[in-house]
């Protein structure tokens, strides 16, 4: 079960590292701002992206069938998977049929969601994550802590130690170029010896029946163009209607993600390689219920740029692992809570409701509203826990009795400053664990307001 407060406490215990992490993410956010401001039409692009996605979701069954029809015509085999298990079974069947013993995989949060690696590994298939950040966390036996920057929580000294242990690099050499070259050499061997490549999908085009994968490292392209078998796994929300819709998304994606004008490679796959096979697996895994939800449907419009994480004051200071869900940050919190409220009941509170995520989202998803709504839903589902529920009920009762509320306020303003600290900061005052109460004002807002109105009369 995810427990954000507990896990975040571990992360912030290392004050220096927390601030370093915060700054690293803020640096990326600033690059995003520069990139977005270089385009006068940025806000129009966001609206267009939102419209295209909303239109697609409203006719999703139609576009998925179009996609399948057109992909099939291009010699690509399309599979459908209701859940993670079915997805993993399809992958294994395809690999097993070709006697694959080594699979090179490029970035795919979906396969993380489906726990594909352990599934294949227990069946004797070696899985190599080839994105550098993912390779680093794979060697460390950790999940990615960010969807675009999987190893953002690690320092170069951590990477140096990991590579020394697994790739035999010099102990203590933490030069990023040296470490990257070492990974390049090792992974190149894997690309050349693997019998299959698996990629994620950034966009699937209904009109043409192809998929688009965006990377900087070129790892998806190596994996999908050297081995004979290419498998692409996609969540069903990845489809867009027209080829030209990509002009909107390719302008938004990299600028929102890292502030780059475009990724190094934006590859359009519309056929297997010569003499090879290409398969696409369309996965539901609890996505369709979003379409039936008034409050949470927009979450499917996400293009996985990670901008909401980079800007989030909570994510920046608590790290991706504190969420305990495959996708961290604001978008992960709403996806996770909708899919399994009991399991992820702490995530919608990992939010200050500042709304910055909504402001940077290239698809204009109402992230802060969704997180706010989740809190009400958790209360209705009785998942908030006794401490929170009782204190909220007491506060609600008090606030609906104005005379009593004023009286309690007056008493508190007089008495609290006289109380000893130990009495105020007790175990029931969770808020006061890491904060001091502000000095008590002499007058309440209501009193000041009345005086102000009197002045104006």
């Amino acid at each position, binding site marked *: 079960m995810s427990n954000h407060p507990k896990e975040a406490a571990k992360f912030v215990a290392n004050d220096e590292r927390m601030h370093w992490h915060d700054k690293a993410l803020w640096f990326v956010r600033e690059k995003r701002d520069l990139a977005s401001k270089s385009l006068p039409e940025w806000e*129009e692009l966001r609206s267009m992206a939102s419209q295209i996605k909303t239109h697609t979701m409203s006719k999703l069954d139609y576009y998925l069938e179009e996609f399948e029809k057109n992909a099939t015509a291009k010699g690509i085999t399309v599979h459908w998977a209701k859940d993670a298990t079915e997805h993993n079974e399809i992958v294994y069947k395809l690999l097993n049929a070709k006697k694959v013993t080594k699979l090179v995989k490029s970035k795919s949060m979906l396969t993380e969601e489906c726990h594909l690696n352990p599934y294949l590994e227990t069946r004797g298939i070696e899985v190599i994550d080839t994105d550098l950040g993912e390779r680093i966390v794979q060697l460390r036996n950790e999940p990615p802590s960010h969807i675009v920057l999987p190893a953002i929580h690690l320092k170069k000294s951590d990477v140096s130690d990991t590579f020394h242990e697994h790739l035999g690099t010099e102990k203590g050499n933490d030069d990023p170029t040296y470490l990257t070259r070492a990974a390049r050499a090792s992974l190149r061997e894997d690309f050349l010896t693997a019998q299959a490549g698996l990629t994620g999908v950034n966009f699937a085009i209904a009109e043409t029946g192809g998929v688009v994968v965006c990377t900087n490292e070129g790892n998806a*392209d190596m994996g999908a163009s050297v081995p004979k078998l290419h498998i692409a796994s996609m969540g069903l929300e990845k489809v867009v209607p027209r080829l030209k819709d990509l002009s909107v998304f390719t302008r938004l994606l990299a600028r929102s993600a890292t502030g780059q*004008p475009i990724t190094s490679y934006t*590859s359009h796959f519309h056929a297997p390689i010569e003499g090879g096979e290409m398969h696409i697996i369309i996965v*539901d895994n609890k996505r369709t219920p979003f*379409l039936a939800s008034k409050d949470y449907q927009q979450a499917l419009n996400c293009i996985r740029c990670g901008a909401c994480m980079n800007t989030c004051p909570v994510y920046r200071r608590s790290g991706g692992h504190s969420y305990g869900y495959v996708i961290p940050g604001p978008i992960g919190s709403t996806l996770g809570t909708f899919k399994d409220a009991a399991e992820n009941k702490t995530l919608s509170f990992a939010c200050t409701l500042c709304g910055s995520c909504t402001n940077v989202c290239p698809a204009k998803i109402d992230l802060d509203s969704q997180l706010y709504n989740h809190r009400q839903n958790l209360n209705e589902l009785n998942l908030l826990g006794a401490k929170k529920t009782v204190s909220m009920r007491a506060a609600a009762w008090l606030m609906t009795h104005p005379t009593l509320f004023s009286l309690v306020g007056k008493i508190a303003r007089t008495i609290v400053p006289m109380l000893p600290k130990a009495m105020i900061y007790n175990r029931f005052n969770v808020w006061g664990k890491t904060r001091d109460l502000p000095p008590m004002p002499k007058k309440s807002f209501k009193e000041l307001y009345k005086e102000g109105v009197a002045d104006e009369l």
Partner: protein
Amino acid sequence: MSSKNDILKAIKDNNLVKQTELPNWNDFGITFENKFEHFSTMLESVGGKALITNDLDNTIKELYPDEKVIVSNVENCSLGNFDENACDDPHELKDIDLCIVKGEFAVAENGAIWMKNADNRHRSLYFISQNIVIVISKSEILNNMHEAYEKISFEDKGFGTFISGPSKTADIEQSLVIGAHGPKSGYVIFTD
């Protein structure tokens, strides 16, 4: 077939997303007075470099004096000494030091070139080569991605990719390292 039907039924039965028109656009997006200049700035910002010359052989020889295995599918360039198209298996491309390949058109706003392996048998050529030089006519620079997608189609099977600079990564402490899994350097040469 049953999973497909179940998924499609689950979508149809409960879809509450309201009908929204697809947006359309014409003459949309940023334009540049000097497209080459902007392209060049963007390409340098992502670790590549743009040049203008018609003397391909000498220019490329100067850039890559030590590269041994060279593939070229560009006219007016005689440096090629390896026939990629004669290889049946892309694994045979693993020792290519440099590929000199034709680009379809360039995009000024982001320093990208559209590549559609019309002349190379293996799409992996663009990624497996240690270095890449893309040759393109100077008249083929577009302003932005909207113009770019007007020129692209996928009526037939195939592959196409926008390449913007050499491969790169910043996965280790946000330090930019040029040369991840694809080429370690990349030049774009515009010819008049």
